[in-house]
């Protein structure tokens, strides 16, 4: 099989993947679109199952309803012109072939790929606190998925905690849906947000929405506290349910009763697939993370591999749409297809203009700089295998681990089922603090196949046929 006979493949059907698919189809290509979800939209524009009919888009997506509808409509309009593989996880990428697990049938297929657009999205960025493994504690994104995708609240009296734009949005959505929001606890200070205002004014509509959520919550009597240091999630004696949250307000410890907690510190990129494909990574200071490098058009360091959306650096849903389209135009141009150069240039300008705003967001909602220093030894960092901050520090002190994969090999942090998705950020912060190195120096957890757990019989049996090499 020649390379040109292999179809272009897009991994991820969020805003980036959908716009990429649309651009490829507009130029006569028929891409394979592989997505873990049953319905396209990604996490931000995630659609409930088809038999959920009560709530209109305005209820589900609020101010983002028009954009969500546009992305959904764009994808639905491509139905017969793409090869859509829903409910499908790309769990390995090697030698020009993707291994794809279809969840409902628990079967795996080998999909040879031509040019590849990686639009794998993001998950919540988590900095653990004692008690975070109690049932009833979820990520902010998880709390939002429960509401949007399942029509459920994570509790009857919920505290939202951490920082980032999602903090106030999710609290607002819960209150609007009729759940009691006990409090919103923001680790950022009002001063951070004031200092960031000039940069945020580059996107006045986004800033206005944030101000609206805060004002709405305040007007509806939801207690809002800034500059907090989360101390612990309180549980009952059997450690089986959430009873409250304790935090430090700068002067003293304070507590509030609740039966559920949603928390997170903005988002982190899903980069495992880019890693397996051999993309070069660099430390990105603004994101406090190692990310696959890409040019302004979305080309990675590997020929024929393109990166778009939050999976290559958290820039938000609007940027994801632009980056997805831009990456598709780059793919087309690299294949010798004539594309609209002015459109490509416009998309790059729009993406570039967002960078200043993105810096402002990071300044408004900074990752707490003292988190690692304050994390108690008994804190469970790895919720898969119950590995504590104290164990990580001891591994540094006794074994001299000074690099993240070394720390993983010695302590098993990042080796559990989530492969570091939940603990990786925290482990890197603790390692940097314990060794006195800058975060950039401690390295990054290497991606490993399978990128998520798959049934063991799929590995032991011969790969499914259907691939004529």
């Amino acid at each position, binding site marked *: 099989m020649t390379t040109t006979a292999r179809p272009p493949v897009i991994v991820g059907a969020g805003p980036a993947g959908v716009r990429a698919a649309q651009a490829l189809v507009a130029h006569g290509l028929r891409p394979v679109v592989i997505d873990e979800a049953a319905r396209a939209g990604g996490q931000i524009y995630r659609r*409930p199952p088809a038999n959920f009919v009560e709530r209109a888009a305005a209820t589900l997506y609020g101010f983002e309803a028009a954009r969500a509808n546009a992305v959904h409509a764009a994808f639905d309009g491509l139905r017969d012109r793409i090869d859509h593989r829903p409910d499908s996880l790309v769990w390995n990428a090697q030698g020009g072939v993707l291994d794809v697990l279809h969840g409902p049938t628990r079967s795996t297929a080998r999909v040879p790929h031509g040019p590849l657009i990686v639009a794998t999205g993001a998950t919540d960025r988590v900095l653990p606190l004692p008690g975070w493994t109690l049932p009833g504690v979820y990520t902010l994104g998880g709390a939002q998925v*429960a509401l949007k*995708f399942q029509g*459920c*609240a*994570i509790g009857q009296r919920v505290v939202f905690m951490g920082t980032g734009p999602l903090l106030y949005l999710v609290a607002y959505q819960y209150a609007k849906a009729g759940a009691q929001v006990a409090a919103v606890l923001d680790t950022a200070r009002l001063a951070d947000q004031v200092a960031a205002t000039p940069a945020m004014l580059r996107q006045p509509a986004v800033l206005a929405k944030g101000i609206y959520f805060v004002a709405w919550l305040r007007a509806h009597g939801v207690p809002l506290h800034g500059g907090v240091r989360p101390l612990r999630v309180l549980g009952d004696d059997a450690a089986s349910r959430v009873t409250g949250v304790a935090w430090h307000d700068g002067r003293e410890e304070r507590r509030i009763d609740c039966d559920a907690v949603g928390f997170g510190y903005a988002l982190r990129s899903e980069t495992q697939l880019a890693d397996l494909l051999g993309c070069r990574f660099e430390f990105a200071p603004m994101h406090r993370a190692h990310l696959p490098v890409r040019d302004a058009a979305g080309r990675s360091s590997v020929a024929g591999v393109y990166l778009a959306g939050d999976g290559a650096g958290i820039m938000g849903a609007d940027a994801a749409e632009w980056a997805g389209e831009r990456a598709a135009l780059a793919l087309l141009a690299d294949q010798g297809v004539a594309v609209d150069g002015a459109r490509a240039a416009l998309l790059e300008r729009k993406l570039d203009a967002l960078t200043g705003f993105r810096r402002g967001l990071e300044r408004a909602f900074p990752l707490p700089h003292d988190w690692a220093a304050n994390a108690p030894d008994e804190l469970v960092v790895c919720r898969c295998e*119950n590995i504590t901050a104290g164990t990580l520090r001891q591994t540094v002190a006794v074994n001299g681990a000074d690099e993240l994969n070394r720390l993983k090999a010695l302590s098993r942090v990042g080796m559990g089922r989530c492969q570091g998705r939940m603990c990786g950020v925290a482990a890197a912060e603790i390692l940097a603090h314990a060794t006195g190195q800058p975060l950039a120096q401690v390295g990054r957890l290497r991606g490993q196949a399978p990128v998520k757990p798959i049934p063991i019989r799929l590995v032991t049996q011969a790969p499914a046929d259907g691939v004529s090499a």
Partner: protein
Amino acid sequence: MATHALLHRVAETGRATVPFTLDGAPASALAGDTVLTAVLTQAAQLRRNEFSDAPRAGFCMMGACQDCWISTAEGERLRACSTFIAPGMALVTGRSEA
């Protein structure tokens, strides 16, 4: 035995019901529920952590944290947040009989 529900339905309650069993007892979910929703709207855990033995009930809800695996009576494991409930499923949470 923790029997309180973690999740609370606030919308979309007019869907058809789906019968299943939870720890051997008859239970009912709604069509379109994930296994996670089906279980946690009537119980407070999905499983126990292998290392701490503490109850767990998922965390990220988007297929990343791998904390929401649940066993079936046949010993199969399902990722509860990304598997839809189906009629006749027999799910086991590992709740103690205390």
